[in-house]
């Protein structure tokens, strides 16, 4: 049966492939002569490799090669001075515990695993520090500016305000932990032809990195990544382990597959960095904000700097004439962090949105009223109007659905036996991005449309969104539209990150469809057909099996004239057990204000995932390191707690669904990040409302509630 045209509860277009196991993920490709690589990792935290005994490994059954700094094949860029410090296999330096130092390749995974255990390294150890809080206190430890200081009006105006507060907020390291383990299959063939099957959020980025490192032409490299089993940001770069695999393939002249272990997921593919933030807020007695100060410190590595937008939100989210921010990064001896869903904004929102709640409490105001009172009409930072913003409407919808009127402003008022009930709210905001992308469209006489772009889908449902954009414009049924992605030979598109894919690639799909329609109209006119004639008839009449168009699309001037953001409001109800300190999120209402909702089902899924990730950030997730050894203690799924089904109540997802007039032709703004940003503060605020306890260190585990 054909799908209805313009039906807007369309299922994920690749859903059936996924649930029936037909979707092929990188590790599932069987290449002829495939070999298996396993990484050997450092067991010290800092120092130098003084010796690497690989003989036993090399002599073990099935072993083809052991590649390390002693025998690596040429990676032209790493032979030059400068560039990154972490040049895998081009350095004998150890920057962190768990750093890959060699790769063992064998004819089976098990043999490679065993042989890897036989590689013995000796080291010259150096003193190290993996403790970010300790580094922050140490006047001798390096602190680098992470973002230019920002000042509007009077600096630290909160200090002289009628009502003021200054508080510190702590976020531990979190680890992305998508279900699919990271890795790559690399096949380096004669004449420097390279094919890889990757887990990546950007096939073009992976292609570019390999080209840069080995100094071979982009055209020589084919990157495939059709299906990705979750990324949350960790697949936004090509990691040393991937370069190591390409090197190994180059070295042995055979395809090599590496799939890292769950434990290695904590040390090889980044984390959300720990952060310590101070917020100062000042207000007058009527509840008008008079000063916002946001100072943040984020963790980074010693060999590479990592920064993110921790203090962005403070600059424009609330009407306030006096705002100043600073953000510094502090290197420690750990692997370099990477953006994790909601990235720095989620970190910053936890602090800012907790502090806003604290201020409302200090003023004895309803935190929702306090936010509404300080809601800005224009963006004071950029001095521009917002392209669209429906926050007040979103507050209203959310408040009604959660039953905000049941909330008592006095904490600890709602008690039923040992359970205390509380309500919390928080805002999330993220740049509504639009980049540059190309899409090719092939409109065929058989009534189908093929769209292609080298974008990715780490799970949000890229293909579904693109299909629906085309479906709306072309009136072609969904099942006659195919969107191909995850292939570096397709027209270029940016990596999937920063909630930009639908906006960026979708615009190119839009442009392609518009161009195809006018081409058909032109053909129709030239062949004396009615302007409304179906494209199939037009193509047939013209004896054309197909027509094709490729379009590059990017934003125009509107980008400079407006401040563009996506917004979300998270309302939660929690129940806190007075005796055991257990916190249960009992109700969630999230409202997204991100322009037109192109694909309601997958958009809703984004919000669901954001809420689940938000519960994790708020209540359970923390990557724990023993700083005496620089090693993770809970690097597995039994001990690193992501929320389980029993932690997740029903999630009521709502969208404003009003087009943004400026962002792009669809009027759609991104929403992957806002689904998570702010959520953890809503929980912390609800816990306060339930108990009167303000917890400023995540995650909010029973011990902290009882303390």
């Amino acid at each position, binding site marked *: 049966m054909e799908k209805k045209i313009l039906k807007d509860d369309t299922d994920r277009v690749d859903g059936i492939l996924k649930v029936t196991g037909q979707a092929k993920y990188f590790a599932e490709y069987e290449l002829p002569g495939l070999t298996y690589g396993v990484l050997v990792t450092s067991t010290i935290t800092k120092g130098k490799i003084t010796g690497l005994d690989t003989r036993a490994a090399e002599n073990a059954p099935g072993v083809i090669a052991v590649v390390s700094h002693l025998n690596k094949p040429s990676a032209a860029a790493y032979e030059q001075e400068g560039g990154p410090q972490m040049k895998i296999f081009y350095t004998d330096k150890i920057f962190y515990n768990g750093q890959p130092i060699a790769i063992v390749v064998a004819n089976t995974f098990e043999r490679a695993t*065993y042989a890897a255990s036989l590689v013995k390294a000796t080291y010259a150890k150096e003193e190290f520090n993996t403790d970010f809080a300790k580094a922050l206190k140490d006047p001798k430890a390096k602190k680098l500016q992470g973002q230019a200081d920002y000042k509007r009006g009077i600096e630290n105006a909160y200090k002289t305000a009628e009502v003021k507060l200054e508080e510190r907020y702590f976020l531990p390291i979190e680890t992305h932990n998508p279900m699919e383990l990271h890795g790559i299959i690399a096949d380096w063939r004669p004449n420097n032809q390279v094919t890889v099957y990757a887990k990546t959020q950007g096939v073009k980025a992976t292609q570019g990195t390999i080209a840069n490192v080995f100094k071979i032409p982009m055209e020589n490299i084919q990157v495939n990544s059709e299906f990705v089993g979750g990324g949350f940001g960790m697949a936004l770069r090509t990691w040393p382990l991937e370069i190591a695999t390409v090197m190994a393939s180059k070295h042995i002249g055979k395809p090599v597959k590496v799939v890292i272990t769950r434990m290695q997921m904590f040390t090889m593919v980044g984390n959300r960095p720990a952060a310590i933030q101070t917020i100062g807020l000042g207000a007058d007695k009527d509840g008008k904000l008079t000063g916002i100060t946001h100072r943040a410190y984020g963790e980074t590595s010693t060999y590479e700097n990592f920064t993110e937008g921790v203090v962005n939100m403070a600059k424009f989210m609330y009407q306030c004439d006096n705002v100043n921010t600073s953000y510094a990064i502090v290197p420690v001896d750990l692997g370099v962090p990477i953006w994790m869903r909601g990235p720095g904004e989620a970190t910053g929102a936890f602090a800012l949105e907790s502090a806003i709640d604290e201020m409302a409490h200090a003023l004895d105001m309803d935190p929702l009223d306090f936010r509404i009172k300080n809601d800005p009409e224009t963006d004071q930072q950029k001095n521009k109007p917002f392209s669209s913003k429906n926050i007040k409407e979103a507050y209203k919808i959310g408040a009604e659905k959660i039953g905000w009127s049941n909330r008592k402003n006095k904490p600890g008022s709602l008690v039923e036996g040992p359970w205390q009930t509380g309500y919390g709210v928080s805002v999330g905001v993220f740049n509504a991005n639009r980049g540059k992308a190309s899409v090719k469209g092939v409109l065929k006489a058989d009534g189908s449309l093929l769209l292609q772009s080298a974008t990715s889908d780490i799970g949000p449902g890229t293909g579904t969104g693109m299909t629906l954009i085309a479906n709306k414009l072309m009136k072609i049924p969904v099942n006659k539209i195919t969107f191909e992605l995850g292939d570096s030979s397709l027209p270029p598109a940016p990596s999937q990150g920063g909630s930009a894919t639908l906006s960026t690639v979708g615009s190119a799909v839009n442009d392609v469809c518009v161009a195809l329609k006018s081409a058909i109209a032109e053909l129709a006119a030239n062949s004396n057909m009615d302007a409304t004639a179906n494209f199939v008839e037009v193509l047939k009449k013209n004896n054309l099996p197909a027509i094709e168009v490729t379009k590059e699309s990017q934003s125009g001037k509107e980008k400079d004239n407006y401040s563009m953001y996506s917004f979300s409001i998270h309302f939660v109800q929690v129940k806190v057990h007075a005796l*055991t300190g257990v916190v249960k999120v009992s109700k969630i209402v999230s409202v997204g204000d991100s322009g037109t909702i192109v694909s309601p089902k997958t958009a809703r899924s984004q919000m669901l995932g954001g809420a689940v990730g938000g519960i994790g950030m708020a209540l359970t997730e923390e990557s724990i390191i*023993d700083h005496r050894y620089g090693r993770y203690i809970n690097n597995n799924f*039994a001990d690193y707690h992501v929320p*389980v089904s029993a932690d997740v109540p029903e999630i009521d997802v709502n969208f404003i669904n009003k087009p943004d007039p400026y962002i792009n032709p669809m009027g759609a703004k991104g929403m992957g990040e806002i689904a998570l940003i702010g959520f953890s503060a809503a929980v912390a605020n609800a816990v306060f409302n339930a108990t009167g306890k303000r917890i400023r260190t995540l995650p909010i585990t029973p011990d902290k509630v*009882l303390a």
Partner: protein
Amino acid sequence: MINFQYLRTTSVKSAIALLLKDKNAKFLAGGTNLIDLMKRGVTAPEKLIDINHVPLKQIEQIGNKIHIGALATNTAVADHALIKEKLPLLSWALQAGASAQLRNVATVGGNMMQRTRCGYFYDTEMPCNKRQPGTGCGAMEGFNRMHAIFGTSEKCIAVHPSDMCVALTALDAEVVLANGKGERKIAFKDFHRLAGDTPQLDNNLKADEMIIRVEIPVNNLAKNYHYLKVRDRASYAFALVSVAAAFELNNNKITDIRLAMGGVAHKPWRLTASENFLKGKEATLSNFEKAAELAMTGAKGFGENNFKLKLAPNTIIEALNLAKSKA
């Protein structure tokens, strides 16, 4: 390769004979703990004796005792009508453990024998007296949030992670062990050990012995009972503290009572002093509070687990409250 021999046996006798032949052999039941430990390099048995085909899956009442075979799965026990009716505390405790998938294969014997979840024990690059005696205890001054507050030793502060065993300790179970010479029976509460000077030993099972069943006396504790497990997420997490509570009430007077705690010691921790205090008393909050206080005698925190000094008595009180309100 770290090779091992895989052997399969179908009788207790042959299982023990195989064990006697080889010091470095281990029984394989559900494998949910043993295989993980092998993968992590914590243990490397040369022989795995698969005992899953030994007929020890019985769940039955014989006289006034309920017998549960060592190879009955956690799910089979938890869902069994006899257990739900007569030993609901055990059923609840089992349900609180691990995940449905794990419980489907994990066995009673394996559950008793499961090793601690201490992170240092699992990481062969770290010091751990339990894994490698003499290397030191990584947790003592390290990450010890999950660790013991009772009966600790200078050598090891690990906890036994089982939920099932807490209930079995409370229920006065006995363990039947088979060896080359025959069988012996010991009280369940004496099966596990404190760490003392030998943290490498979790229990008193001898090298040539096999757990064949547990026996639990039928009781009058199926009305007012509760297994309360406090953990970092609602399911699939080990206990920070858990309490098995069951009592018999006559006119609001406690005539029989069992209390045991998990997540606080190297073995399931029976709260005898609290039981003795509550016996014959009214089931009131103030009595519960007094009992909880008594339970804490000798408790000691190690830093990150200090919160258990507060959480443990609170959990006892709440478990008793819930047990009281159950009927």
